[in-house]
């Protein structure tokens, strides 16, 4: 079975590193980890992910801005997005869902639960 491609965008490099390790360890995913959403469109078009895991609070380009950029991109708008953020307010969640994200995860989350959410989101494609 071909590996699913997941792009993880988070400015916390430690988080990035460990989530990448955890997801790759399952043998089911190929991961591209980005510590900034600045060049997200060109990365999406090169890597062509099946799913994007996106943080919200990031310097320069935040997660919500990144969603807007993706929604304007021909390929970008077809890729399901899961927000994975430490923000827990319903207002933040609402903002993200309005941009069309398929799920919103609040940190901390265990690997197992994360994988369940990823598998569910992959069915959106």
């Amino acid at each position, binding site marked *: 079975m071909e590996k699913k491609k997941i792009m993880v965008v988070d400015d916390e490099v430690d988080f990035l590193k460990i989530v990448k390790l955890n997801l790759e360890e399952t043998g089911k995913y190929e991961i591209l980890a980005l510590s900034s959403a600045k060049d997200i469109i060109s990365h999406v078009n090169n890597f062509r992910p099946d799913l994007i895991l996106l943080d919200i609070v990031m310097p320069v380009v935040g997660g919500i801005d990144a969603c807007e950029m993706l929604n304007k991109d021909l390929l970008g708008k077809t890729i399901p997005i899961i927000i994975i953020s430490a923000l*827990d307010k319903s207002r933040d969640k609402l903002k993200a869902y309005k941009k069309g994200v398929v799920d919103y995860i609040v940190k901390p989350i265990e690997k197992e639960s994360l994988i369940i959410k990823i598998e569910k989101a992959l069915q959106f494609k």
Partner: protein
Amino acid sequence: MSVKILLIEDNPDHVLITKDVLALASKDWQVDSLGDPKQGLKAVIDGDYDLVLCDYRLPGSSALDILKKMKEKGRDLPFIVVTSAGSEKVAVDIMKEGAYDYVVKDETYEEVLPLIVGNALERHNAKKEKERAEKELKIAYAKLKETQEMLIQVEKTEALSRMAAGVAHEVKNPLGIIIQAANYLETVLSQKDTNVFEILGTIKNSVKRADNIINGLVDFSRARELNLKPEEINVILKDSLVLIEYSKNIEIIEELSENLPRALVDKEKMRQVFTNLLLNAAQSMAKRGKLFLRTYVKEIDKLAGKIEKGNRDRFVPGEKVMVTEIEDTGIGIPEEDLRIVFDPFFTTRGPRDGAGLGLTIAKNIIDMHKGVIDIKSRKDEGTTVIVALKI
């Protein structure tokens, strides 16, 4: 506008002269006269005079006595002393005691008296006006101060809730890393070393504990503003019941009064209260038990066995209140814990199950509604939580 003047004078000739002079000077001046200093003093204190004209030398007394006693009683009237010619020195002493002015009984009397009376009345009015303005200023200032304090309070709670949300974000990020790291180690470390797995379990539990506390803190800081609407308590209670997971062996017995009046409450916040209380009840009956839900309206005085005196006193005697009771047949609360179950972070549960904020939040919300919450409990027998709300 008529001005009432009291003349205290024992010499009838002088009374006549003075009355004539004043009547000629202004139609508005009404003069009453008393010759007896005792009666005079009584009229000064209890009467509704606007000005006192007092002869210096009186039988068995003096203007000085009357002036002093008037001041003692806290009466503030323009007080003018009439002296005989040649005793100006005495008049000066009287001025020191707080008289408005003095007038000498000589050939200038007719001419000077009206001027002095008019002047004293004017000064007195100006003084009253100034006092009134000062009082108004003080009231305005107090109001301003009160509003300012209210604004500061609102600002503070908003700042607190902003800070709690900010702190939550900053703490949840590292917690996210720790738990994923623990997950990674679980998969790669040798399965043989059971210590490692126990320690990883501890790490994960600690993360959940910290996360619980942070979430509770955010809830707590948010639980400030109320969105009050007339609501049906039974509906809110039933909604909350749906949100709780129960063991199959808990029997739920609903004794909800029909046709209850609506209570003015914040639905979301009350749901939060009931959810916390129902969750506590469910957690106290891990295996089996009965959960009674009751709602009714009753006079506060008739709830003596259920609500503490101090709490009952927060209502008017005879006031009808809306009561919700949640009773369980669970493990109960030991006597020594009953006083502190509402304290923040007090919990007897394992770190994953409770942050010890459930009852704190519940009490906070009920307080905000100007209601009361009380707990009756016996160890090993069960617990009843009583919430009384205004209707």
